[in-house]
């Protein structure tokens, strides 16, 4: 299952109500609003806890999302681009978050830089449709993945610290 810290974070993220995908015109809007509210809350929480670790923005329709995420290791900040689409079957299907920079650098990744999520994630998500949204996917999926993989990759020397560009 998920570790204690994650669980706590998760509990503070507001759950969603509307079950609607991008194709459901009116309801998607509704859903999108809830997604945003949830995200805002999550980010706020993170900032309060001094635990801000990503930036996200979406296209106008809210079907494509992109931004940056970072992980601080040994007082060095490793920053990666992050992007994902909202699947048609969303929210039944979880979004597939991808870190294109790291494509081919680790085994725990699908083609195109999509991260390999833990076994627990999918059933958990499935159980919580439609209550979970993008913010949950970030918290449950990408967060733990980074925490596990990045120190490993750094140790292997696969990635190295680059002086921050921006």
């Amino acid at each position, binding site marked *: 299952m998920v570790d204690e810290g994650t669980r706590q974070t998760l509990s503070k993220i507001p759950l969603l109500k509307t079950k609607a995908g991008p194709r459901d015109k009116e309801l998607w*809007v509704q859903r999108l609003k809830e997604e945003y509210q949830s995200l805002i809350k999550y980010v706020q929480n993170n900032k309060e806890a*001094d635990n801000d670790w990503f930036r*996200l923005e979406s296209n106008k329709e809210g079907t494509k999302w992109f931004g940056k995420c970072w992980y601080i290791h040994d007082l060095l900040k490793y920053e990666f681009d992050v992007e994902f689409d909202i699947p048609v079957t969303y929210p039944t299907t979880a979004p597939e978050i991808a870190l294109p920079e790291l494509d081919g650098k680790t085994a725990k990744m699908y083609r195109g830089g999509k991260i390999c999520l833990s076994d627990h994630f999918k059933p958990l998500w499935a159980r919580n449709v439609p209550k979970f949204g993008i913010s949950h996917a970030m918290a449950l999926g990408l967060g733990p993945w980074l925490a596990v993989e990045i120190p490993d990759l750094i140790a292997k020397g696969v990635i190295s610290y680059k002086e921050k560009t921006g």
Partner: protein
Amino acid sequence: MADWEEVKRLAADFQKVQLTSTTQKLSERNCIEIVSWLIDRKMVDLIFTSDGKEYLTPTQLINEIKGELYDQGGRINLVELAKNIGVDLAHINAHLNEVLKGQKDIQHVLGQLIDHSYISRVAGEINEKLQQQGQISIGDLTIHYDLPAEFLQQIVDKNLGKVVFGKQDKNDPRIYYTESFIARTKAKIRGALAGLTRPTPVASILNQVDVNEKMFFSLFDQTCMYGTLTSRLPGAQYIPNVYARSQNEWVSNFYRQNGYLEYDALNRLGITDYKQYIKKQLVNEELHYLSSCIISKSILERVQADIDECIASKSYTDLQSNLPSVFNEKDIEMILNAALTNQQRQQILVIESYVISKAFVEKLADSCDELVKANAKATVESGKYQEYQISLHSSHLRSQKSDDADDKVDKREERRKKAASGKSGGGTQGRETKTRSTKKFNRGGNKNIAETDDDDDVQVKKMVLEVVAADEVRDSIQPLLEEESLDDLLEPLTAHLFPKLNEKGLEAAASIYVATVADRTANRRQTHNELQNKLNALIGDVRLFEKGTKLLPQDVQTQLVKYLLKSLCTDIVNEVLNYIAAEQNLGTKAETLNNDQKLKFVNELPSEFKTPLVQLVKSLSGQSIDDFMTTVEEALIPCSMILKKIDKKKDRTVVLNHKHQLLEQLNKCEDVALALHLATLAIFTTATHCMLHASGRHVTAILAFLKQYLTEEQANELTSYHDFVTLMLSGGSEVENAKEKLKEKLPVIKSIANEFKKAGSEK
């Protein structure tokens, strides 16, 4: 499309949220780290709370302490304070001084902070209490307030007269009273004491009036004029003056009347320190202190008078009955000690409570005199005394041997006693005496002496021969005592008299013994002389008889020698043996022994007698008179007797005497056979001027020998007479006839013998 607008707005919001700089929040850990780093560097001065989550500045702490103190009403425990503020106790202690410095009215007492308001409140409370109870002690307050006594004392002292209205006890500064309380207590005590008429323990008074002990003692002097206290201790007694007065009166009256005063009686009256009391009470009296009472001089004088009278009247007096009955034996003893002068002491004997004049005792002793003398005599005669002397002597000798170092005569006696009491014991004799006398002692009921004396003494006493038995003494004085109804004194008097009488008996025995011994030695010397003479005479006879014998033919000679040895010589030996037996203190009578027994007896004699006597006895059964004579001479040497030298003149007179004797006997003789025998011997003596010792059997042989000296006629007369004698002695039918004949011829024979003498002398 309002919804999309809204989405846009939300998206914008989202961006905005994301772009707002993250609040640079430090985690708790970091904060702690930073703060402790700062504290380490002494850059800030902070105090941790005990849970570690908060910090205080010292000023804040001081403020909080003051606040808490106020909250708690002016008194707070430091531990409690620490708990309430949530700071470690150490910090409180560290900053306590600052608090105290800052405010003068706060005090730190026994781990507690107390401020002025609290103190004044306490003072108020104390006053209230004092007014209520009348008295208050700091001790009680300490318990009540749980504050140190000194501190409370300080409070009370400071506020005395201001807030606390009362009086401090002078004896005990820790106790405070109100005036009214003291007055009340005094009244109570006075009431109680005034009501008492008997000595009462203070404790019970206190119980009654419900006043505490200290108070009582401190107020006693101020209140009471009616009596005294025996002491200032809790166990003291209160004695009312009324009581003391009547007590004194009783004591002096009793003493005046009776002349004595018992300690017990004083004790009953509650006077425990009676000696002191008596000294105080009976100042001008002449007192004698005894073990259970005191007596006046008059009683003493009375006793002296009694004793004087007793001595004068040569009787006795029983002090127990003459004195008041309260005196015990010890008292009487003490009275006697005080009353008796030395001179009197010599004249009386004190047994229990009886005073007995020596004269009376003498009288008793005299009554036993007879007994003593009789017993002494019996003792000497029975030989016990001699045994006793021997055992004494032997132990004496032993002691001399055991201690040769110094032989001072005066110490000898002592040493003898020592040796006698020693473990070695006496010889056979000594031991016999000892056991016998022990038995007698026990039977004599003389246990008083035996028990009271030491072992040594007992041993010595046992050695002393008991001439008089204690029983006998008792029996002889009993009637006298019963007459005087002094039965009680029988035992002690017996005990007193017995050793003296015994001593007397021993002396008597000694004198009797000396007398008998003197007698006996005189006797012995005489008998010795007599015996010597007798033996000399006998031996002379033997010698002469032998001489006569030698005249006869050889065969007759041996027979005569044998006869001589059997008769006269045996007599001699018997005399000698008897003498020796007497010398050796043996009761043997030699006459009763045959030769073998004699030998046996002789063999048991000491060696000085043994050898010559054995020879002597053996010579009796020999054949030779010569042998006998030599052995006799030897045998007489150890008997310290001497044989006189042979005196021919004397021999002749002896022979003549012998002849005259024979003739005299013959003339008196009526027995026909004996007449012939005597006549024959007389004729022989006259004829040969030699004596002959022969029996009737030898008459025939002698007659045959005599024929040469006789005339025909005489010879015929004698032979016929002899024939008739043999006829008579042989018995048979003609005995009567022969007797007749012999009687007829008897004068003839006598005349022949007498005439022959004449004829012989004519020759």
